[in-house]
């Protein structure tokens, strides 16, 4: 089984639109949406949920006022400044349990939170593992790990050789959870100064975890000079550029139509460019 994660550093470069297009071109794969706090892939792939799992993990401290003797030990010890005048702010509380441990009258307990849901679905392109973190919750990295486990499990069970993962933006905990142990990372970059800056950081992250990196320049014709810079940068760093996708309003139109762009406009130039990029990535992957 091969696992490929699409990531970007910077948000909004086109990860999800490309992942959906790749899925539509392949049709024998397991798809994972690891952007659990702002998932969008389902808006293009229209999954039918067949299994829902509750995801619990984080805790929040709660004070029982009838037992509290107002000694203030909890407030003094809380490293997250989550207790003020003996009231716990659930937003700041990280659920470490120090307050409950120190409370002389056992007035503090820890409530386990429902952090979100993981889903296993079917789509017309193949099975899909995805999730929904409840708004503002912690533990997005753990929920990503659950999505990854679900995707692998389905792939093993149904003997599917490819797992394609849509990653979240950034380089922090949910991104790290989305790339650990994958066979390749595809960084989608747009030719803007911010895009280049974020590409460098995303590439360092893949290098840090020794994951083979590939780059796809999206909206490449928006700034030819920056696209040339990205390609030169990739050459210097021995990173293969698998595609240069032009800017095309068809991508947004396909999104409004809730369809992968290669299916919405199968004979368009952008569909061809995406096909070429995907072929190139798959070839590079299998040659390894």
């Amino acid at each position, binding site marked *: 089984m091969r696992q490929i994660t699409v990531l970007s550093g910077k948000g909004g470069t086109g990860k999800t639109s490309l992942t959906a297009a790749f899925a539509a071109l392949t049709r024998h794969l397991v798809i994972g949406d690891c952007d659990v*706090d*702002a998932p969008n892939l389902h808006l293009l792939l229209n999954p039918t949920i067949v299994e829902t799992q509750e995801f619990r993990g984080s805790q929040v401290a709660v004070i029982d006022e009838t037992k509290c003797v107002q000694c203030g030990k909890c407030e003094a010890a809380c490293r997250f400044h989550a207790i003020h005048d003996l009231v716990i702010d659930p937003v700041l509380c990280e659920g470490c349990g120090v307050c409950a441990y120190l409370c002389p009258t056992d007035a503090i307990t820890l409530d386990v939170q429902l952090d979100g849901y993981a889903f296993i679905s079917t789509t017309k392109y193949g099975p899909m593992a995805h999730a929904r973190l409840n708004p503002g919750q912690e533990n997005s990295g753990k929920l990503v790990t659950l999505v990854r486990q679900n995707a692998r499990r389905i792939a093993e069970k149904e003997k599917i050789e490819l797992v394609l993962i849509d990653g979240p933006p*950034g380089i922090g905990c949910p991104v790290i959870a989305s790339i650990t142990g994958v066979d390749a990372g595809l960084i989608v970059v747009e030719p803007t*100064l911010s895009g280049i800056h974020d590409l460098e*950081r995303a590439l360092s992250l893949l290098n840090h975890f020794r994951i083979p990196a590939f780059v796809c320049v999206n909206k490449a014709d928006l700034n030819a000079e920056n696209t040339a810079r990205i390609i030169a940068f990739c050459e210097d760093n021995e990173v293969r550029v698998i595609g240069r996708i032009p800017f095309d309003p068809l991508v947004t139109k396909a999104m409004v139509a809730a369809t992968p762009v290669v299916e919405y406009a199968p004979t368009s130039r952008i569909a061809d460019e995406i096909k070429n990029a995907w072929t190139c990535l798959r070839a590079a992957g299998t040659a390894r």
Partner: protein
Amino acid sequence: MIVSIASGKGGTGKTTIAVNLALSLENVQLLDCDVEEPNDHVLLRPMISDVEETQVLVPKIVEERCQHCGDCADFCAFNALFVAPEKVVFFPELCHSCGGCLLVCPHQAIIEEAKRVGVIKRGRAQKVELVYGELDVGEPMAVPLIRAVKSQIEEDRNVIVDSPPGTACPVVASVYGSDFCVLVTEPTPFGLHDLQITVQVVRALEIPLGVVVNMAGIGDRKVYEYCATERIPILLEVPFNKRIAELYSRGIPFVEEMAEWKEKFRALWRKIAEDV
């Protein structure tokens, strides 16, 4: 007044709005809390005056005293400690620095040491004072660094907090404590979907909010319909425009070349101030 800029979906134009707004106002402090991928400095090109390391405290086991009783691992709510018969294994990437393990160790076998998570940089570009964090590559936890960036807030100034994308804890840490939150969205199904989730987060924090529609003209009208139903004010629309996109691609804030927008951003700020 502290105004945070958030979005849910990435790439909708938080940084564009934050930077152009900052350049249109006086006495401004801009804090870039997207410590995983900060970009405000790419557009502002500040003179950096100060770089400071941010550290968190993590446990260090004093082997001579450790009896491998396992109390620390039992206590740790984040599974950052694993106690084997001969050895304690610590996973720094899971540690939240709560200090609980030290507290529960019956043999005083745990001390704390500082671990670097990133840096805070401070600088100035024209009239804008910029503070931003840069999370070290490979470091998973952004929240301590976000809090360190926010500790630099000077409340008597016009403070703009640029948040990271998403709707999880880094966003909550960024917008927490602001007087108003501007949600930047694009009028597409992705933009709308993530806007709806972000509205839930910001409302749960009881922070007043309004929407800026960026790239207006692409996509469909559903964002406008949603805002009307939810009675969310649309504070400003920035059209999808080749010139703005091209300036952005070169890292130039568009108010510098299209000065008429400065007054629109000042009007946006006044509207927010009336609401707060």
